[in-house]
């Protein structure tokens, strides 16, 4: 799709792609269990089993049930969703440097979250999430309009800078609120950097079905997305309703990325890097790219989350900080290779 100059491993046969996917799924399961078991409080596999079969109120059981399980699930679903939205963004803008954060999703959600937290203390966690989701959607709308999207083609450079401008605005607004309300800052700090811990299972169950539906719709659109990536004019000529598809992509991005940010805050770079990794492994065909992105994204975030527990042990850092720092060298390499405007 793009000539990014990245080398391609590009497995050829469907069979090898399927095999690798199975292998990755196994890896995913492994990391999932690692996430459940590793951390400050030492637990082992029997603790895990007992939590669900023979629950006592021991600290290991409590930690697993209320902290680690939601956390692992969130890392899994959000890692997956962000990666898929990254894939969609890069397809939409035809630019390998695109990511959901480019559209201002993160800053819009951040501002609304901070605002709600500070001014509407009655909001439950669910309402907070919903509200920040609205913020994400609004930001995307503004960025898209500002970059001239409504009028026609979007030049990615304009999109990047429009996104940066809108992000700057929302971040300033958020700072204003935080300045006034110090306490909010303390409590929201982790979320602001991107964090998968501290959420309830309840919140997650509201979000998981949405994400699953999102993934499925994405998968259903795979053929059309393939067509679209050949070039907008060509796709139109072949009968694809490109405007509708673009709209569908944006809605999917808002829903998946917005939901992810609402739950876990802005997590950096995952949405940018995973699509590249996916392209490297299986090429651009969407019927493979989507499941691979899902699995790889989940693996990445799960492993980053485990790492975040040990980097400044015994303190934890937000997983968003880990992805930002580890992802930056990748980002820079990709930026240096990408030759377009």
């Amino acid at each position: 799709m793009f000539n990014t100059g990245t080398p391609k491993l590009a497995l050829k046969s469907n069979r090898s792609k399927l095999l690798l996917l199975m292998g990755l799924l196994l890896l995913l399961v492994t990391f999932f269990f690692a996430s459940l078991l590793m951390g400050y409080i030492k637990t082992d596999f029997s603790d895990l089993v007992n939590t669900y079969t023979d629950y006592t109120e021991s600290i290991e059981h409590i930690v697993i049930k209320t902290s680690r399980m939601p956390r692992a699930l969130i890392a899994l679903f959000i890692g997956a969703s962000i990666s898929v939205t990254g894939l969609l963004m890069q397809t939409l803008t035809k630019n390998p440097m695109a990511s959901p954060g480019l559209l201002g999703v993160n800053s819009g959600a951040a501002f609304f979250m901070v605002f709600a937290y500070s001014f509407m203390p009655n909001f439950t966690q669910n309402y907070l999430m919903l509200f920040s989701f609205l913020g994400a959607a609004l930001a995307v709308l503004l960025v898209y309009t500002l970059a001239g999207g409504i009028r026609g083609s979007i030049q990615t450079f304009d999109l990047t800078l429009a996104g940066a401008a809108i992000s700057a605005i929302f971040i300033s607004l958020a700072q204003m609120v935080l300045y006034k309300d110090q306490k909010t800052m303390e409590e929201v700090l982790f979320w602001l950097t991107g964090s998968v811990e501290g959420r309830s299972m309840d919140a997650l169950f509201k979000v998981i079905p949405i994400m699953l539906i999102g993934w499925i719709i994405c998968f259903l659109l795979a053929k059309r997305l393939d067509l679209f990536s050949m070039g907008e004019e060509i796709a139109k000529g072949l009968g694809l309703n490109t405007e509708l598809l673009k709209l569908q992509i944006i809605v999917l991005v808002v829903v998946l990325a917005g939901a992810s940010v609402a739950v876990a805050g802005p997590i950096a770079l995952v949405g940018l890097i995973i699509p590249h990794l996916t392209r490297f492994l299986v090429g651009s065909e969407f019927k493979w790219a989507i499941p691979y992105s899902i699995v790889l994204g989940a693996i990445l975030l799960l492993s980053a989350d485990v790492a975040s527990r040990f980097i400044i042990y015994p303190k934890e850092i937000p997983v968003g900080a880990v992805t930002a720092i580890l992802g930056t060298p990748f980002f820079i390499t990709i930026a240096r290779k990408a030759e377009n405007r």
Partner: protein
Amino acid sequence: MKSLFVARKGRLSFIYEKRSALIFAVSMLICIFSILLSLSIGQKYISMFKVIQILFDGSMGGDSLIVNTIRLPRTLVALFVGTSLGLSGAILQGVVKNPLAAPNIIGITDSGSVGALIFLTLFTDPKNNALTTSIFYMPVFAFAGAFAAVLIVYLLAYKKGVTPYRLIMIGIAVSGAAKAITSILIINGPVVFIKEAQLWITGTIYGTNWTHVKLLLPWFLILFIITLIYTRELNVQNLDDCISVGLGSSVEKNRFLLMILSAALASGAVAVGGGISFVGLIAPHISRKLTNSSFGNVLPLSTVVGGIIVVISDIAARTLLFPLDLPVGIFTAGIGAPFFVYLLLKSQRALRRGF
């Protein structure tokens, strides 16, 4: 050529557009007015007339003490932070060839905060959360952080030359990493870090004094003069690279120098004032709207406009919710942000270059 003002003597020659010279003069007046306003407003209102008297007379009396030791240094810092940012933004927009560029996009602000937090982390006594050295040194660290970031961004973006696109992308990457490091430092530190970091990031000139002025003023002046000398280069940089080379300009060398100028100016401002936002973005915009894209007009005007914005924002910051002294960054953002959106929506075509 009625609209041009030309001065020649021997080999020396300068040209200036009359209209923009006029606009510049008017903005200087507005600037002086806002300075006087800033000196007269405060806990005790001192009339501007008296302020002027004090400035020229230097008499010792209660009022002159207020003006000279409290308000004047703060106003001057606000002024020069604003001028530095305004100028820095104008230069950067020329180098990057895009009017949406601002100093914080190439990582200056976020890396400055890393510098500031490193300072706090190193020099905070864990037992009582007090600083072990003078807070005076914080700007030094912030400056180092900011400036180092630009060098890093430039180096990483260099691949047989630097394109505006790569510069911005890598600037964003470095900003992201810097933000993450900042969070880690905050989380790792005592709770009080949160407040201090927050204050720095929003941007404040509270607590500045004559030392800060003595640091900032010469720094700004020197860079300002150097920039004026480079105005022609900047005009050429702003054109298509092929054309610039065709005109005989050393494009890469000039790009680097101009970036360093922009970075140095912004780093100075950020070191003293923290993450004051939008000034570097808006001041050049306003200048371009009032005149045109020729840098002979934009650079001086952008400088003055930047100064006005921060001085006025500071007045608002310390009087609007009196006796609270809010960070000035809130107002530069509060005024700047909506204004910016308005500007952009109004002239979307201005964002598209080329034929």
